[in-house]
């Protein structure tokens, strides 16, 4: 909880003299009590009344102003004005300073000038008002695109929210990635349908432009006027019926009509005007689009003759790629490069600039290189030109080895400092080491270069540099030690070789650098890089472990990676598991794998994996004490090492449930079903019961939709069977209950024909599993068994599939994405989980995959593989049920599931309000430092230097310029919440003597609750799961630079590097006084809203995501203010 002292200070109560502030103290305390109870409206009312009263004191005015300030209330500035008028001395200075900063936030220049004068009058001396002006529009070199921006954006798949300055670059990206395709017959490129439509649209737009005349307004006076037919002809429509209410527009020319509708021409409005015989006007002014360096720069003399800039531009993908590359560069760097190198020369390396130019930075004529001054000489040696020569250095860098050196530069430049990794950049840029590793990467043949594809296909180098970890002794962490890696390379687990040369060299490896050198060498390979995956996975297992994996365990894990690697995320998350538990888990997995009967294997694997998955959830939530983690998992794993038939699988499942209940210290008489649902819903405090109940209800709804049999019914039934052999009576009620549920199990609807099944070998095992359950006639079996213990025992085995489904269902319920349409609609979704997979592939221990979507003859999509990737797979399956709020869906495959996972995996039952507040304070601190940067050059530089460690040079420069011009809002919009948080941490660490109010509050809060407010604790509370990047579902913050678009298995990394949502929501919840427990219900809803509002142009369009995030926040603020007003607030 927020400390009382803090709140009172914040409310301005402690600051005044005891006598003068007695009343304010009282009001402030009462307001705080109201706010703490969740009655913000009451607190606001109280403070407002006091501030309005004739006896208002400066302190009570200040309390009210600061209350409004904390809640980002629009009335804040007015309230501070009153404080300013009523105060004197330091309070007056503080009020003037705050008003000045609020003016800067609001970009109210006139008010800022006024308050700046008052700030100076009150004794302030450290600020100056910005004088730099925005470049006047006429200075920008523009081209005209016919028709409105909105229409062109629709046709070219660009977000209409985009800043016009960025339009040509976004268009260039779309042309590069989607505009051309290779023809089958030769290497020439041909236009895709997307680009053909853009070209056709431009033609139609020009015709409409002509009709619009000199004033660029399309006008139709009346239905029968002369222009009507001309316009309709261009649009591809004609009138049916005579002018008047009968007139209807219908398609005459389908090609033109398609463009008309697809570009959003207001056809319905035109039709309405014709029907009512009213004039129709449509503003058809062309879109003015700024072009980097002006259109002349981009076109050759020949191209200039071929029509307008836009036609020539989209007609040449190489120009587009160059434009894209240069637009990513820091403007000053690009300008230096452009002045030094001819366009023809740069054009040859456009692809390298596109991928790697974003990290190029020239300052004061010198190239900034990874490693700084210490590494400059090495860079000069490798590139052949000194970094002192700025543009010439980069010119040579992009040309070296078809981009390999630039990719190395980029990979090293992107490394950010992380306490858990250590000073990796410093290590890797040690001159000799840097050269050595590059030599390994370079090899002898350098073509094709890494930038030849349109998306980065080789991400391994970047993953290696950003995820490498140094041990406390400064050496790279090699999981298990060098021996493990030497043996892995020399004695390949599948009896082949990773690389002949490396295999030969491995015998002589002595230290970690030898292993790293090999790993760097393998990053060149375009085929799957298994050693790197093993290295990163085991490094992540060791990363937060007090005692690293021993050599034997690491060796086993490396060798069995192909089979069980997907399960290692469990060990990366559960850092309390020892080598014994890990080996026990793998032993049991191996035993399950040995089961020949695939149906039995599926039941054993499903039961075992679901128990482990539940264990993992309870461990993550802290319900299983860390001291008991190892023993409890070991116990569960041991059960499945012995299960050889259905009866034993059932027994292992039942004993596993008991082990979990014991590990969570559940009451002995607790219903296992109810207890599991309670535990999976989360460990709620009494005050959080309402949120907890909502979670429980939703889980029960899903359980019922899936027609699963409760654990209690299953276990009671088995108990009853056991008692029968002792001569007791059959519990008819129980059997009826179970039989009724079994009767509800339906056949998979519209399942595939035998031919389809045979051809695809997909869905066979789940169907068999379901059929087996449907056929179970419990009553008849019991009747037949009479009191024969053997037969009754066999019935127990028949319940094994039901127990498996119930346990699997519990894990599905826990990770259900918002809406959970599939789980509510397909009653067999859980039962259909395929633990065997496609014939011959053995997916029992592989990552969870979604299969069967878009195949109407199947019984709907289903999940295949183990449960290790269940949260992501469920989110992936559900993502297309989200409904974009705009007319065009530009939701993309990898981002949305990851955003959903970030809302379903973390839980906030154990998060304290002070943690929310701590995040909010950091956000505010960074914003205040930004605002101060508007009026103080040194402050600005300090902020930019901190930001430089997290954001690319181009964006840092842009933000610097915006701050210099006083464009605070635009500047804030260019900084992501995760960057705000990280910059704030950095600035606070660097300025331990900062005596500003927020810095003081942060320090005070931290001192009061050092454990809760440590970086690690906040990282766990508001970080995101990163199953690909960190090989773990454990929520955490990594503070990495946002990754670029990638291909292959690492494509999810782009989304995983986005860490802003939860930090933003945390600050929002603090501002709106929402208790942390409610985040368990609200975050999934907010995330859904955020996704539905995203309208981005391309995969790296983070500003669009940020806009959507902020829009959700603004809506909630507005709603909250309305509620406050409705509740009686002013």
């Amino acid at each position: 909880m927020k400390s009382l002292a803090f709140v009172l200070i914040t409310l301005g109560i402690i600051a005044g003299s005891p006598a003068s502030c007695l009343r304010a103290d009282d009001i402030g305390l009462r307001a705080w009590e109201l706010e703490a109870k969740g009655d913000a409206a009451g607190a606001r009312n109280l403070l407002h009344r006091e501030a309005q009263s004739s006896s208002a004191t400066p302190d009570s005015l200040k309390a009210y102003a600061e209350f409004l300030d904390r809640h980002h209330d629009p009335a804040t500035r007015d309230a501070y004005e009153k404080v300013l008028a009523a105060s004197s001395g330091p309070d007056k200075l503080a009020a003037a300073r705050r008003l000045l900063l609020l003016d800067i936030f609001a970009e109210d220049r006139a008010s800022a000038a006024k308050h700046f004068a008052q700030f100076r009058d009150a004794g302030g001396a450290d600020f100056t008002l910005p004088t730099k002006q925005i470049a006047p529009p006429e200075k920008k070199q523009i081209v005209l695109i016919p028709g409105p921006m909105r229409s062109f954006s629709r046709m070219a798949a660009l977000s209409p929210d985009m800043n016009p300055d960025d339009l040509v670059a976004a268009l260039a990206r779309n042309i590069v990635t989607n505009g051309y395709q290779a023809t089958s017959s030769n290497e020439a490129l041909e236009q895709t349908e997307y680009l053909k439509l853009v070209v056709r649209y431009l033609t139609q737009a020009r015709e409409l432009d002509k009709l619009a005349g000199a004033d660029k307004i399309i006008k139709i006076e009346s239905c029968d006027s002369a222009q009507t037919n001309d316009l309709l002809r261009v649009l591809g429509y004609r009138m049916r019926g005579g002018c008047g209410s009968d007139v209807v527009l219908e398609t005459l020319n389908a090609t033109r009509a398609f463009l008309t509708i697809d570009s959003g021409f207001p056809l319905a409005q035109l039709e309405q005007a014709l029907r009512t015989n009213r004039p129709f006007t449509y503003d058809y002014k062309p879109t003015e689009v700024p072009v980097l360096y002006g259109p002349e720069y981009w076109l050759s003399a020949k191209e200039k003759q071929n029509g307008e800039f836009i036609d020539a531009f989209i007609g040449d993908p190489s120009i587009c790629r160059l434009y894209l590359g240069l637009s990513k560069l820091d403007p000053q760097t690009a300008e230096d490069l452009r002045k030094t190198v001819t366009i023809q020369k740069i054009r040859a390396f456009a692809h390298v600039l596109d991928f790697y130019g974003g990290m190029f930075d020239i300052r004061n004529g010198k190239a900034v290189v990874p490693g700084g001054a210490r590494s400059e000489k090495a860079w000069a040696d490798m590139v052949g030109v000194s970094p002192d020569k700025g543009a010439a250095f980069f010119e040579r860098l992009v040309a070296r080895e078809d981009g390999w050196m630039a990719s190395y530069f980029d990979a090293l430049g992107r490394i950010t400092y992380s306490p858990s990794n250590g000073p990796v950049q410093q290590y890797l840029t040690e001159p000799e080491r840097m050269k050595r590793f590059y030599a390994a990467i370079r090899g002898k043949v350098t073509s094709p270069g890494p930038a030849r594809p349109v998306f980065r296909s080789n991400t391994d180098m970047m993953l290696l540099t950003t995820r490498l970890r140094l041990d406390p002794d400064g050496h790279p962490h090699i999981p298990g030690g060098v021996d493990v890696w030497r043996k892995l390379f020399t004695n390949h687990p599948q009896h082949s070789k990773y690389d002949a040369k490396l295999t030969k060299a491995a015998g002589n490896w002595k230290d970690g650098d030898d292993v790293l050198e090999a790993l760097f060498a393998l990053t060149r390979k375009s085929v799957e890089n298994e050693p790197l995956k093993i290295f990163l996975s085991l490094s992540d297992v060791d990363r937060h472990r007090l005692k690293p994996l021993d050599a034997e365990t690491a060796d086993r894990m490396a060798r069995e990676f192909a089979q069980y690697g997907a399960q290692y995320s469990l060990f990366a998350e559960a850092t309390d598991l020892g080598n014994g538990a890990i080996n026990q888990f793998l032993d049991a997995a191996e035993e399950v794998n040995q089961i020949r009967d695939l149906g039995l294997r599926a039941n054993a694997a499903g039961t075992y994996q679901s128990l482990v998955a539940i264990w993992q959830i309870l461990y993550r939530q802290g319900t299983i004490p860390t001291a008991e983690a190892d023993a409890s998992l070991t116990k569960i794993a041991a059960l499945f090492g012995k299960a050889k038939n259905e009866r034993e699988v059932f027994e292992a499942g039942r004993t596993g449930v008991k082990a979990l209940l014991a590990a969570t210290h559940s009451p002995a008489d607790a219903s296992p079903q109810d207890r599991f649902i309670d535990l999976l819903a989360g460990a709620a405090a009494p005050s959080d019961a309402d949120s907890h109940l909502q979670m429980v209800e939703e889980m029960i709804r899903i359980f019922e939709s899936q027609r699963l049999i409760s654990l209690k019914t299953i276990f009671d039934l088995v108990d009853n069977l056991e008692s029968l052999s002792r001569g007791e009576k059959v519990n008819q009620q129980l059997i009826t209950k179970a039989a009724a549920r079994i009767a509800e199990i339906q056949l998979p609807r519209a399942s595939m024909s035998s031919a389809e099944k045979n051809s695809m070998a997909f869905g066979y095992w789940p169907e068999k599993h379901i059929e087996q359950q449907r056929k179970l006639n419990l009553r008849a079996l019991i009747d037949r068994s009479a009191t024969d213990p053997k037969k009754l025992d066999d019935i127990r085995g028949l319940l094994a599939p039901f127990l498996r489904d119930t346990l699997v269902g519990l894990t599905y319920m826990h990770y259900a994405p918002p809406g959970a349409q599939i789980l509510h609609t397909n009653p067999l979704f859980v039962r259909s989980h395929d633990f065997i997979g496609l014939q011959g592939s053995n997916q029992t221990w592989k990552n969870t995959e979604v299969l069967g979507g878009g195949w109407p003859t199947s019984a709907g999509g289903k999940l295949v593989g183990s449960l290790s990737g269940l949260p992501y797979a469920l989110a992936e399956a559900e993502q297309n049920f989200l409904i974009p709020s705009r007319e065009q869906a530009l939701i993309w495959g990898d981002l949305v599931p990851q955003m959903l996972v970030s809302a379903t995996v973390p839980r906030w039952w154990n998060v304290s309000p002070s943690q929310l507040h701590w995040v909010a304070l950091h956000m505010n601190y960074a914003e205040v430092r930004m605002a101060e940067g508007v009026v103080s050059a040194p402050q600005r530089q300090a902020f930019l230097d901190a930001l430089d460690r997290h954001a690319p040079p181009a964006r840092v420069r842009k933000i610097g310029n915006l701050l210099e011009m006083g464009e605070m809002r635009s500047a804030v919009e260019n900084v992501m919440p995760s960057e705000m948080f990280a910059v704030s941490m950095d600035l606070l660490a660097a300025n331990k003597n900062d005596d500003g109010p927020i810095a003081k509050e942060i320090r005070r809060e931290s001192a009061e609750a050092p454990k809760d407010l440590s970086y690690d604790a906040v990282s766990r509370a508001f970080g995101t799961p990163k199953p690909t990047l960190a090989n773990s579902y454990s929520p955490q913050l990594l503070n990495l630079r946002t990754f670029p678009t990638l291909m292959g298995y690492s494509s999810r990394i782009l989304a995983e590097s986005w860490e802003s949502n939860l930090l933003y929501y945390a600050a929002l919840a603090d501002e709106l006084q929402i208790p942390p427990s409610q985040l368990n219900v609200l975050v999934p809803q907010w995330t859904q809203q955020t996704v539905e509002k995203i309208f981005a142009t391309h995969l790296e369009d983070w500003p669009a995501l940020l806009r959507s995030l902020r829009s959700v926040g603004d809506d909630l603020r507005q709603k909250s203010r309305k509620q406050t007003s409705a509740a009686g607030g002013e």
Partner: protein
Amino acid sequence: MNSIRKILILGTALVLTAQERPTFRVKVDMVVLSFTVTDSKNHYINGLKPSDFRIAEDGIAQKINTFGEGNKPPVQVLENGTTRPLLAGTPVPTEPGKDEAEIRSDAFVGTNVFVLFDTSNYMYRGFVYASDAIADFVRGLDRADSVAVYTFSRNLSRPAPLTHDRSEAIFGLRKAVAGDDAALYNGLLLTLRDASKIPGRKVIIVFSNGPDNSSMVAPDDVRAVAEDEGIPIYVISTSEVSKDPVSSNIFRRIATRTGGKAYFAKTWQKQVEAFESIREDLGNSYTITYYPQPNPNEGFRKVSVEIASDAGKKMRVRARPGYRPRSGF
């Protein structure tokens, strides 16, 4: 549930115990049943009265609560079988003891028509003609009807939410953007979810080329939702039956089982005719409501609608075959 909440808000329970757990049970909601009656030549039979019908669920006779024909205002059916008009804006009568959310009688005047327009890549060629045909259909709807225009490709989009204003619906329709994968059954499911929140009579008209390459739900799972909600689905496929037999069969099955119809209309003219047929169906259908009599069956309940008179034996009733009662807290 409210009482449970109150207890928990007071903070007396750390976690829910078994006794406090909310009870999940089958709810008995008012059933809305729309159907058409035709003769042997497929001509609509109009003018039938409530007493002409025998409604049964799993063979258990049901008592009709309200009765409506076409777009005429509905009437309340009294105990003695006589009827009396429902006053506009008054709540639909409920049975004593039934905890039913208030539904106003206006809700049963006209039909809530949800048009679900396929704007995926599969519709690329016929997109503009389809748009024209839908616009004509919207214009020709009865004044009492409301209409929503939804589109789908990979995701659902709601360009025109439910409205009485035809222009608004057409404005939305003409804003549709073409392109992307087709997730027809996902889109249909979401449309059903929206429609189920609206009281009164509703239908969904799917206008699609047929193929689906993105849905995660099976067509028959979606059909089951439509059956349970009592929402007939009409399908206009712009593909020939023989071209895509899988989709054609699914369309037929969905339409038949929900009380709708499937049309295969490749040309614009055929599409217009299909829409005309749907409009006729809407104008010539009967809508009754009833509260189910006690029935232990919590699974699928078979509904039968019979004409009481001898003449009725030659008549054909087209209605959904049954439903599953809702469940919840």
